């Protein structure tokens, strides 16, 4: 007999339905338009930390989207105004108690605001859903200083490696500078903020800007205009003050691909339709992606995503 039963019980199934209804209700009241975009597209993602599921479709290979970002930006460039989407997203080989390779994402875009203003909206929404009193905002630099006692922004690679070894003992050898920052973030900062409730970390190192604008902070240092929202140490949402410069993004995709090549990952051609849309003009906007399954897990106190999904990866 197979294990055919769902992981989520009846109570949690109802809570999921209610959460989705509440989210849609919130955006309807805010006059943000619900949209749908394709999940199986011609272009994949070049970020070396992400891998698409590849699906053979006749003569071509298509890619299950790791987020609906590219297609939603094409809608924005076409004049959609504020939009949101609740859809499935797919990430190859990301599986664990907080990861399911196929998961539900809430992604939305607001015109004419920056990532600080968007973080405020995320804070209000998440605090309301989880019935928490409020949230804290930390700059990336300040939280590293607080937890690790080190100014990691400018520290050279060797210093970061020594810092990681000091805190963690044995670490994988040969990590590059950004991977060391990721290691310190996931192994030192995240556990340290577990008891802090809702925490925003904002203004990342410029090398970790991803698709966000690069800006200068008060000290004149370049930063990625990005935020992450953590709740009890669990990463819940990732937001950008969007970079709409097609040439800049093309250059970042090329950088991604040279890093992919060095790591033995396959090349990902840039999404030309996205780049053409940006050339036509992306309105100034900020966007955020929020993990709905994790939000439900936080709301219900579930320790494992298996308990909030009907059929998690091992059951599907």
């Amino acid at each position, binding site marked *: 007999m197979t294990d055919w039963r769902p992981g989520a019980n009846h109570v949690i199934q109802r809570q999921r339905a209610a959460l989705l209804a509440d989210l849609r209700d919130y955006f309807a009241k805010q006059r943000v338009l619900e949209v749908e975009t394709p999940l199986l597209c011609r272009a994949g993602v070049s970020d070396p*930390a992400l891998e698409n599921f590849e699906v053979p479709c006749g003569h071509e290979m298509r890619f299950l989207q790791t987020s609906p970002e590219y297609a939603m930006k094409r809608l924005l460039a076409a004049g959609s105004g504020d939009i949101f989407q609740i859809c499935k997203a797919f990430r190859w080989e990301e599986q664990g108690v907080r990861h399911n390779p196929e998961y539900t994402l809430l992604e939305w875009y607001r015109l004419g605001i920056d990532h600080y203003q968007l973080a405020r909206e995320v804070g209000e929404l998440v605090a309301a859903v989880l019935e928490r009193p409020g949230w804290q905002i930390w700059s990336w630099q300040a939280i590293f200083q607080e937890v690790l006692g080190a100014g990691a922004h400018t520290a050279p690679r060797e210093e970061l490696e020594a810092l990681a070894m000091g805190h963690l003992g044995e670490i994988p050898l040969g990590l590059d500078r950004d991977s060391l920052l990721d290691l310190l973030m996931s192994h030192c900062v995240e556990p340290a903020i577990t008891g802090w409730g809702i925490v925003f970390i904002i203004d990342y190192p410029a090398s*970790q800007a*991803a698709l966000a604008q690069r800006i200068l902070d008060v000290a004149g240092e370049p930063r990625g205009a990005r935020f992450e929202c953590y709740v009890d140490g669990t990463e819940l949402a990732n937001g950008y003050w969007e970079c709409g410069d097609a040439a800049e993004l093309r250059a970042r995709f090329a950088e991604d691909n040279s890093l992919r090549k060095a790591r033995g990952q396959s090349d990902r051609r840039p999404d030309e339709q996205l780049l053409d849309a940006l050339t036509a003009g992306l309105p100034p906007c900020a966007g955020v992606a929020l993990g709905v399954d994790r939000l439900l897990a936080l709301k219900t106190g579930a320790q494992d995503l298996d308990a909030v999904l009907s059929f998690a990866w091992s059951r599907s």
Partner: protein
Amino acid sequence: MANFSTNEFKSGLKVMLDGEPCSILENEFVKPGKGQAFNRVKLRNLRSGRVWDRTFKSGDSLEGADVLDVELEYSYTDGEFFYFMDPVSFDQHAASADAVGDTQKWLREQEKYEVTLYNGAPITVSPPNFIELEITETDPGLKGDTAQGGSKPATLTTGAVVRVPLFISQGESIRIDTRTGDYVSRASKN
């Protein structure tokens, strides 16, 4: 041996780490919002029994360890090695005192033990949860006292010393929980 990637790590998988055979206990996938993913792995060094915590970059791999758990019967010791026999093939395996470790206290001839073989040689020997052994030495028993508390030391054929109730006498066989070293009862009829 085959190589195993971090996404194949699961509890019970035997791998080589720093030249030591290890068994994977837990494997946790960790990833910051964006960026490099890691696997935080707990492994038991099968030789020393120590538990190691290690972080791997996701996608890194480890060589599988040639490790096999078998059930063997204890035969005898020549003072240096302890000899175990496969009850089916009659193959003999010599285990060092290091490999036998604390299990030495619970060795009884013809009893079955779980033996972990690494490259064909025993590295650990685990006793059954319960074992019956004879008492070679203890103070004389107190007649009639079967219900009250109170205990005394008793030496077993293996040299192990356990606490037994006062009514137990020398020459009797008793049942012991090997996980705690506690007396359980008088042995079932031999």
